[in-house]
């Protein structure tokens, strides 16, 4: 059972464009939704995270939009740069410590010059 569904699988965006990655979850007990960025040969690194009491969170060029009723959340990367080229994973978990992070399948983003 796939608890977090992520799309698209891959994405090509021109420099300066907006990259949008979408995720949907099933378990209503999830209440912590992070996004991770992974470069080849490295572990996932926390990018930004949101809790369901807000509908949007912005950090620099990265914004999470959250729709609790639809059980969906998305990552927007504004003014995308070639250095943003990486694999992005959405995840969801119950916020109590020790619970597993449930990852989406990942989106490979390529930002072209």
């Amino acid at each position: 059972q796939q608890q977090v569904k992520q799309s698209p699988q891959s994405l090509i965006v021109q420099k300066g464009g907006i990259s949008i990655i979408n995720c949907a979850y099933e378990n209503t007990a999830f209440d912590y939704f992070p996004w991770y960025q992974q470069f080849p040969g490295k572990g996932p690194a926390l990018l930004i995270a949101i809790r369901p009491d807000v509908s949007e969170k912005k950090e620099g060029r990265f914004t999470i939009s959250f729709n609790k009723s639809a059980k969906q959340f998305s990552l927007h990367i504004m003014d995308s740069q070639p250095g943003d080229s990486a694999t992005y994973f959405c995840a969801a978990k119950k916020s109590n410590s020790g619970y597993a992070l449930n990852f989406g399948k990942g989106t490979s983003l390529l930002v072209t010059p």
Partner: protein
Amino acid sequence: EPEVTQTPSHQVTQMGQEVILRCVPISNHLYFYWYRQILGQKVEFLVSFYNNEISEKSEIFDDQFSVERPDGSNFTLKIRSTKLEDSAMYFCASSSGYENYGYTFGSGTRLTVV
């Protein structure tokens, strides 16, 4: 910035052999995790560990797997009798327990079973 350190970065082992993957979590973190990522696939949860015991484990974490915190700094994952399908990147992670800070992942150990 504090890091989670994993060793070795790459390990090749023969099928049926035991392997131990090692991790040094961030020093003031209380929760420790192992995840794995088969090449090109998503990151999958294996086990979480707190207060010297397993707090949650996935279906993947069967009797062939075990974890241990042998001293105050190391956190290990042992695979008793490796199978070809255990070939993957294994990531250790730790967290403080304050969710605003999320997890910190190590750079991983690439395990190749031949």
